[in-house]
Every structure is written in structure tokens, then in C-alpha cells.
């Protein structure tokens, strides 16, 4: 009996140590290592051509002249005895303006392309499809859940993070991208007549979309509408797949000590129709602009 008890105590101690080890290796270390991981963002550098160099010189000389003029025109009050509160309030204003500028700048960049792109505005709770700067579809975002990792950004880095569009790397969904029907060409009119089907409204399946973008961002789109049983099964299987992958990664990190970069996520809820429209309208490698 005593031996059994001792074995049990030893096993408990071992299990406790395993728990601590697992917790430290898979949670504590990744969190502590991830100290402002997204600060080292690099702006896409365009190779300067002779023309662009000249243009840049011209514009810089113009802009500096202009800026000097403008600064003279709009004299900024210099108040060095400002309270911390005021300073912080002004800083927040600047930070919001920077984010807004980053959002518009990214949209303007994308408007130069021919492709349809996605605009997610978490401040106004709107998801939009745009092409050439024209909003072709607008959907209300009913609920938002954001990753806590987004709080780790410094404001400047955050603006920089938002300033350049996110590009889709991979997407998974419970609905097909294009609901293709394959038909064999009939050999004669009799076969053609047999193939005739009276068109009916396509069945609208439940939607859940996972989109992995560059800069390690994951966007999950789910529907606010009630799920049917098939939809639930499909969404569960997709969720299980993700869970399985993260479990395997966590297990592997126990002995490899290799961790993925911080992967911020954003979960949004849309109407089923809007989610379907957005998923089907986007090209294979769409880009996204984010405002938050």
C-alpha cells in the first residue's frame, strides 16, 4: 500500500513538472520572446530610376519649400507647460490620424490595380469590396473579436503595419469559391432535351471562412445567421482541422523550441449572404486593407 502511495505521489510530482514544462515551453516562452515582434517592419523599397530620382528631387525641393510656407502660414502654438494628460490626448489624436492616413494610403495604392480588394473597417464596422476605388459592396460587421497580440504594437509600427495592404496567402471555407457545374455536350437533340433542367435558386450554404494573410494576420469570417446541421458539421470539421494543426505545432515546440511569429487574428461576423458574396467575389490572391 505504502509503495503504491509513493508511486502515486511520484507520478503526481512528475505530472506537475510536465505541466509546468508544457506551460513554460508552449505559453510563457512564446509570450516572453514575442516582445514587440512586429516592430521590424520594412517598407517595400522601390528601386529608384533616373526619372524617379529627378522627380523625387523636384518634389522634395517643392515640398520643403511648400512645407516651410505652410508652417509659416499655420503657426503652431508652442506650449511647453502642457500637462501630461493633454500631451497624451494630442498623441492619441495623432495616432488616430496616422491610422486613418495609413488606411486611405493603402486603399489608394490598391485602387491603381484592376483586381477587387477587401476593405475591413473595424471602426465603422463595415466590410467592403472595392475595385478601382469604387465600393461595389458594403456589408455590416455584426461582431468583432481581435487578438490581444495587436495590443503589443507601438503606435508608429501599428500605422506602418496597416499602411501596406495585406495579401492573401491561403484561404479555407465551407463553401466552394465558384459553384461549378460540369456538363457533357449532348450527342443529339434527344440527349440535349434530356439534359434540360429548370433552373432554381442556388442553395445558400452556411459560411465560415479562414483567410491567412501576409504579415501573419488571420481573418476569420463567420455568419450571424443560425447554422443548419450540415453547416455546423462543416464548420466544426474546419475548426477541428485548425485545432489539430496548432496542437501538433505546440507538441513539436516541446522538443524543438521553435515558435511561429506572432499571428494576430481578427474574427468578424457578417450576414450569410454578405460573407458568401465577399468570398466569391475576391480573386484567388486578393489584397486587403484594414482599419482599426
Amino acid at each position, binding site marked *: 500500500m505504502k509503495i503504491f502511495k509513493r508511486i502515486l505521489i511520484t507520478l503526481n510530482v512528475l505530472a506537475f513538472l510536465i505541466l509546468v514544462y508544457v506551460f513554460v515551453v*508552449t505559453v510563457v516562452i512564446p509570450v516572453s520572446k514575442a516582445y514587440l515582434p512586429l516592430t521590424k517592419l520594412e517598407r517595400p523599397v522601390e528601386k529608384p530610376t533616373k526619372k524617379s530620382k529627378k522627380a523625387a528631387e523636384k518634389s522634395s525641393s517643392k515640398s520643403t519649400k511648400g512645407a516651410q510656407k*505652410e*508652417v509659416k502660414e499655420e503657426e503652431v502654438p508652442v506650449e511647453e507647460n502642457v500637462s501630461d494628460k493633454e500631451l497624451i490626448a494630442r498623441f492619441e489624436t495623432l495616432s488616430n490620424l496616422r491610422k486613418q492616413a495609413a488606411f486611405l494610403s493603402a486603399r489608394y495604392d490598391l485602387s491603381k490595380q484592376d483586381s477587387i480588394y477587401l476593405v475591413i473597417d473595424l471602426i465603422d464596422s463595415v466590410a467592403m469590396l472595392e475595385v478601382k476605388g469604387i465600393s461595389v459592396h458594403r456589408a455590416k460587421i455584426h461582431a468583432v473579436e481581435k487578438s490581444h497580440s495587436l495590443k*503589443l504594437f*507601438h503606435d508608429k509600427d501599428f500605422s506602418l503595419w496597416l499602411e501596406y495592404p495585406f495579401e492573401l496567402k491561403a484561404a479555407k471555407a465551407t463553401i466552394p469559391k465558384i459553384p461549378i457545374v460540369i456538363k457533357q455536350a449532348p450527342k443529339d*437533340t434527344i440527349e440535349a432535351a434530356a439534359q434540360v433542367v429548370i433552373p432554381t435558386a442556388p442553395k445558400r450554404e452556411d459560411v465560415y471562412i479562414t483567410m491567412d494573410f501576409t504579415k501573419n494576420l488571420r481573418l476569420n469570417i463567420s455568419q450571424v445567421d443560425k447554422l443548419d446541421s450540415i453547416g455546423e458539421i462543416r464548420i466544426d470539421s474546419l475548426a477541428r482541422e485548425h*485545432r489539430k494543426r496548432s496542437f501538433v505545432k505546440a507538441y513539436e515546440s516541446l522538443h524543438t523550441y521553435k515558435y511561429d511569429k506572432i499571428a494576430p487574428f481578427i474574427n468578424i461576423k457578417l450576414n450569410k449572404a454578405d460573407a458568401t458574396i465577399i468570398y466569391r467575389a475576391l480573386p484567388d490572391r486578393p489584397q486587403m486593407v484594414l482599419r482599426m
Partner: protein
Amino acid sequence: MENEIESIPEINSSPKTAGIWSVTNVVLSLLLLILLFSSISVLYYMPELVDLGYSVKAVFIKREDSHSGSYAKLEKQIVSTRRSLEDLNSKLQKLIPQQPYIIINTTYSSFKLVSLGDTIRTGVCSTGSNTILKVSEKKQYVFKTPKGVFTVINRKKNPVWVKPDWYFIEEGLPIPPRNSEERFDSWSMGEWALGFGDGYYIHGTLYQRFLGLPVSHGCVRMGDEDLSVVANTLQVGSKVYIY
């Protein structure tokens, strides 16, 4: 005797002691299971736990940005950011076409006619059925409406449809020669046809009961009244946005 005396309490106390031990053992066993289960749970809920860790960490991050710089410097930055915002806004405003344009939703087969930012008509239409007609191993036709930005390149009143090969293949009919009379049809496309490139048109239809459904071969079919308004509003050069 001594041995007997010593052995008596052991015999008497054994059921009680065994009971206590068994309770302890059960507790220890349960604890063991909980600990092992917790380890697996940590692995299972790792993403959530890590994210929770970030929220804790975010509290302790020293935000240098928020206290750096003087008030004057901040004000200057605010002024310049406001200026660039205005500049970007005006640039984006310039992208809105001055001519009326049409937006077509292929998922729900609907359209929206817009002029100077105001929606002047909405309605249903028929868009591509997303069907692949397989003729042979090497040859197939794809019936889908293209997505993106297009421009109206021509407007035809009372258009004549020149039936392409796929029409005859789909009907199980022999394909007639290029200029055969069988190919010309002057009633199927309605009153107007607005071409937006690659043989795609916005036109009328005989199958008005299928409006709102994806049944076409790639063109955008409209009801008579809608088509009349759209054709009279859009001109050559007007934009067609399809998504």
C-alpha cells in the same frame, strides 16, 4: 505473547487504515489524471493561452511613443498628417467616375445603377451559370461572367445575336457554317445590347422568369424595363463593375 499483542491492533486497524489509504489513493489518482489532462489542455488551447499572455504582457509594455516629443512637435505632426489625409481623400474622390456606372453582383444576380454617387436603379438580372460544357478531352466552354472593371464599348439598338458554336453544341445540333442563316437571331437579345468586351453584353432576354438566377452563358441578362433604363443611362465609355 508479545508477537500476539502486537499483531492484534494491526488486524483491528487494517480495514480503517485501508479505507484511509484508498481515499488518499483515489485523490492522488484523480490529481494525477487532472495534471495529465491539464498538460494536454495546455497544448490544445495553446493559441488562446498565448493570446491571453499577450494581453497580460501588453499591460507592462512601456509605450515610449506616448510620452516622447514636445507639444509643439506633436502639433506639427498632427497638422502634416491632417494635410496628407486631405490629400488622400481628394485623390480617392477623383476615382469616382463622373459618368453613370453599373455594378453587377454575380453571386446574387443583381445590379445597381449609379450616377454621381447616387443609386438610381436596382434590380435583378441573370449572370453566368458557372457551367463547364465538355465537348471533348481538349475542348470545353466555360459559361461564367467575368469579374472586374469593364467599359461599355458599344451600344446596339435591336441587336442581332450571332449564335456561337457552343449554342449548337449545347442543343445537340450540327454546327452550321460561319455565315449560315441559322446563326442569326434578331429577337433573343431584347431591345438593347451593351458590349463590354470579349463578346460579353448586357442585353435583354426571353427568359424573364429566370431573372435573379445564374443561368446565362456569361452575358448579363436584364428585364425589359431595367434594360431600357440602363441602356439609356450608360453610354459608350461608362464603367461596368462586376463582382
